[in-house]
């Protein structure tokens, strides 16, 4: 099955420990992950009131697109 692709600016959700966190794709890091899978640099705010943003690099299969939810909101 073809790997799902994300783009800069995409709104996504992912698991962080026991929480579900929302973030924005900042960069497609290219096919540098295990077996050539793409990794994506995602920027997110760890806590709602946090002043600084955090970053994580994740493969597509650990990301859920929120584009549909945003467009219908």
């Amino acid at each position: 099955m073809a790997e799902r692709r994300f783009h800069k600016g995409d709104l996504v959700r992912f698991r962080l420990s026991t929480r579900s966190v929302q973030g924005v794709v900042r960069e497609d890091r290219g096919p540098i992950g295990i077996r050539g899978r793409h990794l994506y640099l995602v920027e997110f705010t760890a806590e709602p009131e946090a002043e600084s943003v955090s970053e994580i690099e994740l493969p597509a299969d650990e990301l859920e697109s929120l584009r549909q939810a945003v467009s219908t909101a």
Partner: protein
Amino acid sequence: MPSNSLIRWDGERAEALDEIENAHAMVGGTERGRRFATQQINYSYAALLSSHFQGFCRDLHSECVDHVVSIVPAHMKGFLRVEFIWNRSLGKGNPHPGAIGSDFNRLGIDFWTHVHALDSRNERRRDSLQSLINWRNAIAHQDFDPVALGGTFKLHLAKVRTWRNTLNALARDFDRVMYNYLQALLGTVPW
């Protein structure tokens, strides 16, 4: 088999650097204007070389993190990924030897010790990398201090080519060091 990061270094990154080589060759003539133009191209070449080597090191670090995280329980993967790239030097600064060492050391390896052990020539290559970074900073800030640049502010194509050969060798050995380390850590070959 090389890492995906090394494949990229030898592929698209090498092609981008070759384009600068071609630009240098296309500036014809023997007049003073040509010497000025080629000097600017040499500066661009050195800056781009530093930039792509930073990209390679950052790629290799990310690739290694992906492998390390693959063996931990699912609920721990996320925050480990965050921690490994938090405040990563290679994500915001030059690929100077100290930055490379501090980022890879966070994966549990004494990075430069292993790189030096793999090939004794790597100590001199590390010094050469620092020399490139000194030039890159001088070019970026237009602050050419001959004392810091080996007594000159002229950058010749041969010098940049030497740096490129040096970085090719370092890239291969970085790949090999992390291959050996991850194989021992994970119990399986990473790439």
